[in-house]
Structure formats: C-alpha cells, structure tokens
C-alpha cells in the first residue's frame, strides 16, 4: 500500500500523519483551497520540532565537515598552484550532481541514514568554500606580504597572521553562501532517509493541504536567515580592523 510506504518513509516523525489529520474535523481542513489553516497550525506545531532539529544538525555537521575539507584543499592549492584547476573542476563536478540523485547514488554504498545525507551535503559546500578561500588568499595585496616578509616572518606565519586574516571576509562570505544553500538542500535529505523538514513537505496529503508545506518551508528559510545573521556577526568580530576603518 502506498500509504504504508509513506508512513515508513516519513519515519518516526510522520507516524500517523494522514490518519490523524483526517480524523479531526477542523473547519479550514475541509476546504483544501485554503492556503493556510491557522487552527491546524496551532494544534500541530509541535510535530515540526524534531524535523527542525534534525535539519539543524544535518546542516551544522555538513557545513563543518565541508569547511574543514575545502579549507585544507585551498591551503594545499595555495602552496602548489598546479593543483588549482583540477581541484576547481573536481569540486565543480560534485556541485553539478543534483542532490536527490546524489543521495540515491550513495544509498547502495553507504546505506540509508544521516551519514549518507551528510556526505552529499558536505560535498556540495566544497565548491563554494574552496573557491572563496582561494580567491580571498589571492586577493591579499603583495605589499602586505612583502611587509610581513621584511619583518622576518616565515611563510607559515605570513599565512596564518597576514594572509588568512585579510582573507576572512571572502572566507566567511563563502561559508554564508554554503550554509544558506545547505539549509535549503537539506529538506531533500528525506530521500536519504535522514529526516529533516522534508518529511513534513513530502507527503501525499500535502498536495491538497499546503499548510504543512508552508510551515516547514518557513522554518527552513528562517533557519537559513538565522545562520546567515550569526555568521555575519562572527565576521564582524573576527575582523575588528574593518570596523575601525569604516568609522
């Protein structure tokens, strides 16, 4: 039965989803044309808690893993310039594979669940973060590096104390783009059986009842904006010299 499969897919979170909804008789539920049913939303808001938390975890872990890998690759490419074109092309190919396909292609290899989703999601962040770190590092003025060299800094010191701090705006910029997109893509993690807000969007009943889609989509967008605001604040504190110049 399709509905049986549906319940299984939605996992713990969506158990009894359709049944529960039809058993109650809220006025606006009877009319599928209603865009948003406040009564239903008030009664059922708690069912979005666990998916939202799952989504948050997926995004946080994926971006952290993606950042670590992309940052390491960018530093490597910074030292060995010949690595740049192949790395850019490689991360570009990963970025081009549609996320649903990516999840499904991984399933026979890694099995269903959170790990699969995290592998795919972090692979998506590589391209954006890698590119921004590389651009940030190459935008550091040669004069700043010369001055550092003149002060007797080693290459390692120049990297960590001059180049990376000056490249922080680009690096955080990449991190922001990557995080915001990952929040959106993580709704598709339902295809990897990894939960998330997609479980509340991707159900048969929702085709005639958009309230749940709107709530889940709204939470996802709010989450993306919050991540963005937090990262922007981090950037401001990490680059105090920019604030001084601005004032």
């Amino acid at each position, binding site marked *: 039965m399709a509905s049986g499969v549906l319940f299984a897919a939605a996992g713990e979170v969506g158990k009894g989803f359709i049944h529960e909804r039809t058993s109650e008789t809220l006025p606006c539920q009877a009319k599928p044309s209603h865009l948003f049913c406040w009564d239903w939303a008030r009664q059922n808001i708690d069912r979005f808690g666990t998916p939202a938390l799952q989504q948050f975890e997926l995004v946080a872990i994926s971006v952290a893993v993606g950042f670590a890998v992309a940052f390491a690759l960018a530093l490597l490419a910074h030292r060995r310039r010949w690595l740049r074109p192949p790395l850019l092309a490689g991360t570009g190919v990963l970025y081009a594979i549609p996320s649903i396909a990516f999840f499904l292609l991984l*399933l*026979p290899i890694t099995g269903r669940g959170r790990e699969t989703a995290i592998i795919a999601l972090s692979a998506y962040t590589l391209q954006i973060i890698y590119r921004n770190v590389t651009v940030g590092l190459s935008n550091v003025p040669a004069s700043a590096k010369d001055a550092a060299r003149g002060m007797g800094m080693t290459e390692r010191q120049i990297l960590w104390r001059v180049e990376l701090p000056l490249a922080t705006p680009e690096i955080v910029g990449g991190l922001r783009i990557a995080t915001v997109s990952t929040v959106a893509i993580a709704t598709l993690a339902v295809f990897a059986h990894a939960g998330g807000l997609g479980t509340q969007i991707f159900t*048969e009943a929702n085709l005639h009842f958009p309230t749940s889609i709107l709530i889940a989509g709204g939470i*996802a967008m709010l989450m993306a*904006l919050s991540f963005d605001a937090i990262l922007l604040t981090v950037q401001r504190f990490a680059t105090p010299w920019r604030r001084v110049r601005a004032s």
Partner: protein
Amino acid sequence: MSLALIQAPVSASFGGAFEFIFTPQTSNVTGGKTVGGLSQVVELTLTQLEVTVLALALALVVALPAGLYFGHRGTGELVAIGLGNAGRAVPELALIALMAAVIGVGLLNLTVALAILGIPPILTNTFVGIREVDRASVDAARGIGMTEFEIVHKVEAPMALPSIFTGIRTATINIVATATIAPLAGVATLGEFILGENVYGANGVLAGAIMVALLALVLEFSLAGLQRLLTSKGLRLSAV
C-alpha cells in the same frame, strides 16, 4: 502517480540499475507491467531536458535583461543582491510542492516554478559582473562615441561573460535538479523512476538517479563549452 518514497534502494545494485536502463523488464513489484528499457529512459530524459530548457529560457528572458539594465545603470543593487540571497534560501522541494498544491499541476505551472529558481542566480551574477567591469573601459567606450546600448552589448557584456555564465550554470543546475521532483507537479521526468519505486523497483530508482546525474553533468559541460565559444578572442588571449 504515487508519492511513496523509496523503500529499498539499499537493496538496489548498480548492475541492476544499468540493466534497467538498457533492457525493458517485467516489474516484479506491481507484477506484469513492463518497465525500464532504453526507449522509456530516453523519453523521460528528453522530458526532463525539455522542462529544464523551457524554464531556463524563461528565467533568462526575465533575469538577463534586468541584470544588464540595472548593472549598467548601477541602480537596484539592494534588490539584485537581496534577491540572489533570498533565492538561495528557498527550499526547492517546498516551492514545487506548494505550487502543485495551490496553483495546480501541469507543464506551464512547473515551468514557472522552475524559472523562479533560475532567476535569482542569473540576475545577481549578471548585475555583479557588469558592475565589476573596469569603469575606465566604459568611459573609453563612451569617449569614442558608443551609444549606451553599444556599451552594454560590446564592452560590458563580453567582459562580464564569466560572471554571467556562472549565474546561468548555477541556474541550470538548480533547475535540472529540481525538475527531478516534477512528477509531483504532474510532469513525468526522470523523477518518475525515483518517486515511483512501487512501480519501477529499487533498481529503477537507482537508474533514475544515474540518469539525472548524467544529464546534469552533460548540461554543465555543454555550458562550459558554450562559454568558451562565446568568450571574445581578445579576452581569451589576455587571460593566458
């Protein structure tokens, strides 16, 4: 079209998936129905390509002139950049599901929904690309008597081409990826295999994923090739 989610892709194998792509077989899930095979796979692939091209064309018609215009005038930065950022935060799945639920299903609605996904990256990247063109070049063009249209057409657009193409490629990736869930909106793309495991079986799901990934990569490489072709000779030389 049932929305039953994939149940047992874990039991699928790449060998079985390739067999599904190349040879029609009797569905062992619903029994009796013939599924898979090259002709069905090609048909669904072409539908997905068609939907993608239509939506991309619509997005280009809207976003490219707007990006060129606002970039040239240097106005509307807040809107152009803000739209790009907001567009990135919209969950594709929610957008398609919502469009299907509210406006209804069909090719036209789907095309519009997909085009909405493609507009922000094209608009933002075109705008930024045009703004970043060296102002001295633009002044020089104006000095030798070019009209504003000529400046955009012959100076700004060619120099902003890499950025514009970044936008188009991002838009294409978004659109072709999201076209996978088009069966939700009543259009049978390759997502038909992916969302219809109870008909096509686990190998069908995997076969759909393989084809979607291939299609996306072919589009990506074609656009990269097109960009190379369109880049003006002078700029190609100076890049070396």
